[in-house]
């Protein structure tokens, strides 16, 4: 983005304060534009003919430094690139790294089907939603056009995930595209030998294309410039991911250099970057070592500027940290994630069901909620307004107190005496020190649960119903 204050954006807005954009003033809308939490097209008046110039100028000023590239179609389509900063705390990172797991065209049909299934359906619950893989890369190992296109077809029959077609052989790529171009796949890759033919292919089918120049940033930039001159803008750059030793050190620095130059305004290379941690399998043969090292590379390049990456290991101990790291780095640091405070019903609670106290920090709430729900525990779950802070930090910081708990129950009109037979609140183990205060403040019977909500089921077996004296 070429501007960084709302005032600079405000200059171009119509100044009507009409509110169509959902903000009450143009200035408020300008702030949202600078934060990148609104689209310029949300302002209808600026789309009028007489505002065309302003629209175009502002659109140009707001354009992210790193270009955005779309891959795939429909609701599984992904966008990569679009970043404006080198450090997440300066704004946030946009368009999380697309984690792409591979299949190959020499796989046996059942294995292929199973692997596609695993990649598509692998899921890990986290903060109210599931973490998933994003795309499938199809590698041509056979180097046979027909065998490749057959494999592409089979993958497409099974899944709508975006696909990446991988071969250095233009004929193979063309064969793959002939059956899949309407899915807007990313092709991989043009290199120094095949770039003219691959350029033609990308141009013929209008699909995004990866440029691969391992260890050679001059070449990579020349290729990017050449493709741009030929009218292609949907480019992804792969500077090569060398897996080990000083080669890895150079790889790391290549990613840093490319992204820094891009953010600093070198438009010629300001494209999304691809990393291929899969190369760790060229070094390690056994699954555990290769998966571990692949995860190390994946984490490194999720953090340092990889926008899409190609991976091989589908072991849960590789996928889980990869999915989490991606989520960690792309979480918007500007907002604490929280749920609306209130008393929620989990399952179908009755007057005998427990009343569980927790906080409205999204990570805490959803962890507890899913621990309860997936173990079929019917209960009332009270998310106390701790301003989005977890249990332990909220107890330490004073956001979770006896009076907050009382207020939380009252405001959602939950009457412990009326709605339960046991008049008991269950506090998190990490809030044990609030027990006395909560008893005094609410008049309820208070029991202390385990420290980790994952252990509530076992705890319930021994401690529920509570002994009421």
């Amino acid at each position: 983005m070429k501007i960084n204050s709302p005032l600079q954006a405000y200059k171009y807005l119509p100044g009507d304060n009409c509110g169509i954009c959902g903000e009450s003033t143009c200035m408020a809308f300008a702030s949202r534009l600078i934060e990148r939490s609104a689209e310029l097209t949300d302002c209808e008046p600026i789309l009028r003919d007489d505002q065309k110039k302003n629209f175009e100028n502002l659109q140009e000023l707001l354009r992210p430094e790193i270009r955005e590239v779309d891959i795939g179609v429909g609701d599984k389509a992904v966008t990569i690139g679009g970043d404006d900063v080198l450090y997440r705390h300066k704004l946030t990172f946009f368009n999380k790294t697309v984690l792409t797991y591979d299949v190959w065209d020499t796989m046996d049909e059942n294995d292929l089907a199973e692997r596609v299934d695993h990649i598509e359906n692998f899921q890990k619950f986290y903060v109210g939603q599931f973490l998933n893989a994003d795309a499938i890369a199809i590698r041509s190992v056979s180097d046979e056009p027909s065998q490749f296109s057959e494999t592409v077809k089979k993958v497409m029959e099974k899944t709508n995930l975006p696909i990446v077609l991988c071969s250095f052989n233009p004929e193979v790529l063309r064969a793959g595209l002939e059956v899949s171009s309407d899915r807007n796949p990313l092709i991989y890759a043009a290199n120094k030998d095949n770039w003219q033919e691959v350029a033609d292919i990308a141009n013929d089918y209008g699909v995004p294309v990866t440029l691969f120049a391992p260890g050679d940033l001059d070449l990579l930039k020349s290729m990017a410039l050449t493709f741009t001159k030929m009218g292609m803008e949907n480019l992804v750059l792969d500077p090569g991911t060398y897996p080990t030793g000083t080669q890895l050190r150079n790889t790391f620095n290549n990613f840093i250099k490319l992204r820094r130059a891009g953010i600093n305004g070198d438009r010629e290379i300001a494209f999304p970057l691809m990393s291929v941690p899969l190369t760790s399998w060229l070094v390690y043969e056994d699954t555990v070592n290769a998966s571990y090292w692949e995860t190390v590379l994946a984490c490194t390049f999720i953090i340092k500027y990889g926008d899409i990456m190609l991976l091989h290991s589908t072991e849960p101990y590789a996928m889980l940290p990869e999915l989490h790291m991606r989520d960690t780095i792309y979480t918007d640091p500007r907002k604490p994630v929280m749920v609306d405070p209130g008393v929620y019903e989990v399952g179908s609670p009755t007057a005998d069901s427990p009343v569980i106290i927790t906080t409205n920090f999204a990570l805490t709430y959803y962890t507890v909620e899913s621990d309860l729900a997936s173990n079929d525990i019917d209960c009332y779950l009270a998310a106390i307004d701790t301003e989005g802070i977890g249990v332990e930090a909220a107890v330490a910081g004073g956001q979770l107190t006896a009076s907050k708990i009382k207020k939380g129950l009252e405001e959602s009109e939950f009457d412990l005496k009326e709605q339960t037979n046991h008049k008991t609140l269950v506090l998190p183990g990490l809030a044990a020190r609030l027990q006395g205060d909560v008893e005094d403040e609410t008049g309820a019977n208070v029991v202390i649960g385990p420290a980790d909500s994952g252990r509530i089921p076992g705890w319930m077996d021994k401690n529920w119903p509570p002994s009421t004296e």
Partner: protein
Amino acid sequence: MTKKMKLSDLTEMLKDLDVEALEGVNIEGDIEFDVSGVGLDPNLSYALGYEAAQVSLHIANIAKLLGYPVDQLFGASMGAVGQEAPSAEGIAAKTGLSELASSSFEVSPVKEWTHTIEEVTLGATSSDGGSRGNTITLGGENALPYYFDAEMPHRNYVTMDVFDLPISMAKSVRTNYEDVMDDPAEWAKKVVNEYNADMVTIHLVSTDPNIEDTSAKEASKVVEDVLQAVDVPLVIGGSGNPDKDPEVLEKAAEVAEGERALLASASLNLDYERIAKAATDHGHAILSWTQLEINAQKELNRKLMTQCNVPRDSILMDPTTAALGYGLDYAYTNMERIRLAGLTGDDELTFPMSSGTTNAWGARESWMKESPIQNDSDWGPREYRGPIWEISTGLALALAGNDLFMMMHPTSVQVLKEATQSLFGTKEAEDIDISNWIGAEV
């Protein structure tokens, strides 16, 4: 095909015809005919049209020469039906360029990184009045870790945890220590000799009044034992009890006099002055620990320097490590901000950092047998999940600028060292040719 045509011929023809901008027949972009003048005399138009068609034919022939399937294209644009997309054969650079544009890549180093992170040396050899076999120096950076902007003077180091009583730990960690858990000295030997620890952290957890309330004096004996058992530099940790720790660390600092250990930790919620005095009186360094808050970190560092006179080369920071999935987003960014602030001149933050990476074992993903959530995919064997959780947590912080890692699992230590030393540049490995990775049979 016999008819040959040079580009210069074409240009000549175009000049006569008043047809402009036939650009890029073999150099650039799309071919464009731009006929100047709007309200043309119909006769002239006809003549021009004729010539243009001729030119097109010639160009089409050139294209054919180059191998492009022109007929299909013409067929398609003239409304022929049933044409297929160009087939795989006979394709060549219709997109125009036959050579790569020349360009070289340049990027400048970061100008704002004007300050150097302090160097802090831990351990003392006999020449400095200690008994350690070697010393370890942390810090000294002028750039973010492993960046080309400036040489990173020291690699990352790992100190492995040893406790003064058997504590509860994740199963896959415990199995490595079952034979030594009752003997901190043996435990220390094991991590140094077998697991390649650069340093040892002895945690005096038994001193906690709620655990065994071991006296400071008794606890300090364990410190002596460990100093005897291994000759690497030491970190000495209390139990984390804010009332007891000052006393425990004072006594430990005394018995370790001359060894230049790291005392862990000073924090804002205990009597940090006593711990700081213990460090300065006996020549140790001090760990300044705050909880994920950059301003609190500045405040504590400032107090240690100005109020307690701790020299700048004796302060290390622990800005708190939260595990992957449990606040690593905060921990990562907190460290990155601290390091960037240091490099750009905030002299309350120009100190090396340490991470309690062991915290990763608190994440349920690292120790629980299976997911408590029914719709989760299978989490797989926890023996493999745990170490990689510790590795990825540590690795993220290494990239944020962390220097010293406090860790537990031998595999985690080995892999994290391998990763950080590769990035640092001291890990030699055979060069790998990745130019044809797609075809790899993996």
